[in-house]
């Protein structure tokens, strides 16, 4: 199908984009378009106006910070895969980004877009929750930071206001090894289940995606040496997950992805 008609505006800076969002209450931000445009093509989304931010070059930069990296909202997924600074500073971010869609989609899709869209099976929201990133948003009041752990509410729902724009993501360098694993039917599909595991010596955390309405992070302590016992420990953690139906299918997958992500964090494959 074809999208419904809309007014098109090209913003030349973030302040102007926020001003347009104020002025046109039904407007949506257009960045890479890889989530929004399919919805529009099927008329599941019919914004009256689009504010195109893809020409704002200062939002497309990756900058090192004292604690890690600052990613502009317009950084493309393929940039995360290819960028040497990302691979060096936050390798799990490059690894997770390689699992997003297919090459042609990664060439267009943006970090900010993926976070604002908040698909429960998407990789980047989970990475941000796992690593404790801050999402820098701008609205009429100015810039503020929302911790990723307070950003994702549920299916396609965030605490970002409809008049606010994501301008950047501030990511700390992980202190501990982080493993990533997801189960997909075909490479490039949305994950049926996925997990990131931070693995310290005796403590750590697991962040699940694809199994609950939004990414969920839980701490763990004293994991067993034996894989069978560890699986029981993961299983106990999954009892606090809201599987939103389909529990019999999702719980064993959640255990498996957590275990495999843990093994990867520990350097196995």
């Amino acid at each position: 199908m074809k999208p419904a008609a809309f007014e098109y505006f090209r913003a030349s800076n973030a302040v102007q984009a926020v001003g347009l969002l104020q002025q046109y209450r039904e407007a949506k931000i257009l960045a890479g378009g890889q989530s929004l445009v399919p919805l529009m093509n099927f008329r599941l989304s019919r914004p009256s106006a689009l504010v195109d931010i893809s020409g704002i070059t200062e939002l497309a930069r990756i900058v090192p910070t004292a604690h890690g990296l600052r990613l502009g909202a317009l950084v493309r997924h393929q940039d995360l895969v290819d960028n040497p600074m990302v691979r060096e500073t936050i390798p799990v971010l490059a690894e997770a980004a390689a699992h997003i869609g297919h090459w042609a989609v990664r060439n267009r899709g943006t970090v900010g877009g993926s976070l604002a869209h908040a698909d429960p099976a998407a990789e980047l929201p989970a990475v941000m929750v796992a690593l404790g990133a801050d999402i820098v948003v701008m609205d009429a009041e100015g810039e503020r930071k929302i911790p990723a752990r307070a950003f994702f509410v549920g299916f396609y729902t965030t605490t970002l206001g409809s008049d606010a724009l994501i301008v950047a993501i501030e990511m700390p360098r992980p202190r501990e090894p982080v493993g990533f694993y997801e189960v997909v039917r075909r490479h490039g599909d949305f994950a049926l289940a996925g997990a990131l595991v931070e693995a310290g010596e005796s403590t750590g955390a697991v962040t699940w995606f694809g199994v609950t309405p939004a990414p969920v992070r839980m701490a763990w302590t004293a994991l067993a040496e034996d894989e069978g016992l560890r699986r029981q420990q993961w299983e106990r953690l999954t009892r606090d997950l809201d599987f939103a139906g389909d529990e019999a299918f999702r719980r064993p997958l959640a255990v498996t992805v957590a275990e495999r992500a843990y093994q990867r964090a520990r350097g196995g494959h």
Partner: protein
Amino acid sequence: MVETTRIELLVNGERLTADVEPRWSLADVLRHQLGLLGTHVGCEQGVCGACTVLLNGEPARSCLIFAVAVADGVAITTIEGMNRAEGMTPLQTALREHHGLQCGFCTPGMVLTAHALLTREPEADEGRIREALSGNLCRCTGYQFIVDAVAAARPAYRKEEP
């Protein structure tokens, strides 16, 4: 009557103008305004890859891009831009020799994606070829012959672009 905007697109090295509604996809503008029918429109949701074009040499879904939003100076390559005066390119010849197409619906997207890959990575192994082509669906061939053809075209990319 919805207002149209005049845009200029750099397609296959030529500057072309079109009057477009903002809601028109690049795929539809290429086909219906510019008459470049080699860009095929399958799913219109970014899944099938039939509408793949190259933007500055990188594959992109033209069904998920509004023509009005294509930045000035971005070089668009469609399958028509792969034509050579001397005939088919080595990649296209390899597809024919390896029976890498039947109905041909997916072929323009396959050729452009494979061309972009081999231009970047002339030594791409079979795993890389499969990964790069995984975003292009083919309902005829079962993929093996396409992968064989792309692998066979690698030598042509080692020296210079065909």
